[in-house]
């Protein structure tokens, strides 16, 4: 269930919006920190899902060489979530991203949604598996590359079956290559963000604020 407790907002913190005020509040609330209420898995999932929507909107504005190609920027929150969410909520996040985007763009019943579902679920599962399997011997870069290439491979297979027929073979190398490239860039960004982000530290429970 979505968290229904409302935390009283501190006027000064809201106005200043500064990290110091924010983390001070988080520090003082730490004593009562629990999985329900603020910081619950459902809440984190909703927040990360919202960022998926936001990044999708940005991705939509970037001109793409081929209309069917997706850059995968919108999977960044899912990549970060491999270190934050437990498995059930991780899967919910992937679903939230797919279904939510389908609702926003009104494509729930079309092939677009099928591509989105297959691509996102593949990326999510592969990324989570890579993170769990290789632990400290892999960074977000490798995780992201594997997720992106696997996701694009699945989408190419779908495209061959549903839309392009055998001709899909001809775009496969380009599409997979783009997966490798975007996976690399996304992974590098994710690593640097996770290292520098105070929010990420709070979300993974590493920080006291």
């Amino acid at each position, binding site marked *: *269930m*979505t*968290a*229904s407790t*409302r*935390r009283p*907002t501190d006027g000064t*913190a809201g106005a200043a*919006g500064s*990290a110091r005020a*924010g983390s001070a*509040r*988080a520090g003082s609330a730490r004593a009562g920190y629990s999985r329900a*209420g*603020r910081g619950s898995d*459902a*809440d984190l*999932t*909703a*927040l990360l*899902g*919202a*960022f998926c*929507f*936001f990044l999708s909107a940005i991705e939509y504005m970037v001109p793409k060489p*081929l*209309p*069917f190609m997706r850059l995968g920027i919108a999977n960044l929150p899912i990549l970060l979530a491999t270190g934050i969410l437990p498995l059930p909520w991780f899967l*919910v996040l992937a*679903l*939230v991203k797919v*279904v*939510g985007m*389908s*609702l*926003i763009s*009104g*494509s*729930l*019943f*079309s*092939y*677009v949604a099928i591509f989105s579902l297959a691509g996102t679920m593949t990326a999510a599962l592969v990324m989570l598996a890579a993170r769990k399997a290789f632990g400290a011997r892999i960074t977000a870069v490798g995780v992201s590359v594997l997720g992106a290439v696997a996701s694009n491979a699945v989408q190419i297979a779908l495209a061959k079956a*549903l*839309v*392009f*027929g*055998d*001709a899909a073979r*001809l775009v496969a190398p380009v599409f997979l290559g783009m997966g490798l490239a975007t996976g690399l860039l996304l992974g590098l*960004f994710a690593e*640097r*963000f996770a290292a*520098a*982000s*105070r*929010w*990420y530290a*709070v*979300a993974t429970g590493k920080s006291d604020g």
Partner: protein
Amino acid sequence: MARPERPAGESAKKRAAARARAAGLRAGRKAAYEAFFSPGALAAAGAAISVAFLLQDSLALKGLMFAAFAFAAWRSGKRSSVAATIAAAAGIVAANLLVRVGKVLLTVGPLQVTEHALLDGIDKALTFEGLVYASKAAIMPSLRLPGRLGAVIASAFVYYDRIVEYAGKIRPASLISDADDLMLRVWEGETAEPSPECRAVRPVAGYAVLAASVLASFAALTLK
């Protein structure tokens, strides 16, 4: 005698005015559509009709259904780009023509258009774009999905609005710290609670139209 030149700004102003007019008309259509159909019934009907559309063998009937979907999407006030539709359809047909199958209809230099490949390409393009338009007509923004997934998605939409509100403060040079500030700010705000669903009663005629459409789609499957 030289004709007075029209100032450059005027045609730009006319275009802006035309765009605003179109947006206004679209908003009007959208309001009427949303008042006429209940979101849940519309989505359910859309799903059923999409299935009937997928099962339809006849290219001509598929074309008819496609036209109906496009009209419904227009009527719902949703934006759609004709250029994007044509481009995607052309791409799908072209890709299918690459693998030659069937009777050779046309030869232009090294390229050959074959009958079966062409029909297959048209079928796939119609299916792809038809489903896009059917979805646009069937999914209303106010649709609330049931269950816990629906609740999480609704919360996500609330957070999304908040993100968009704060997002203007991100600069590429300080991307990571700006994004981090954004995350913290959204995170530290109030817990997202989705607004209660609008429960206005829709006219019976709306449900009747939906039922008739579903029946017609499946009846079309029996036509040879």
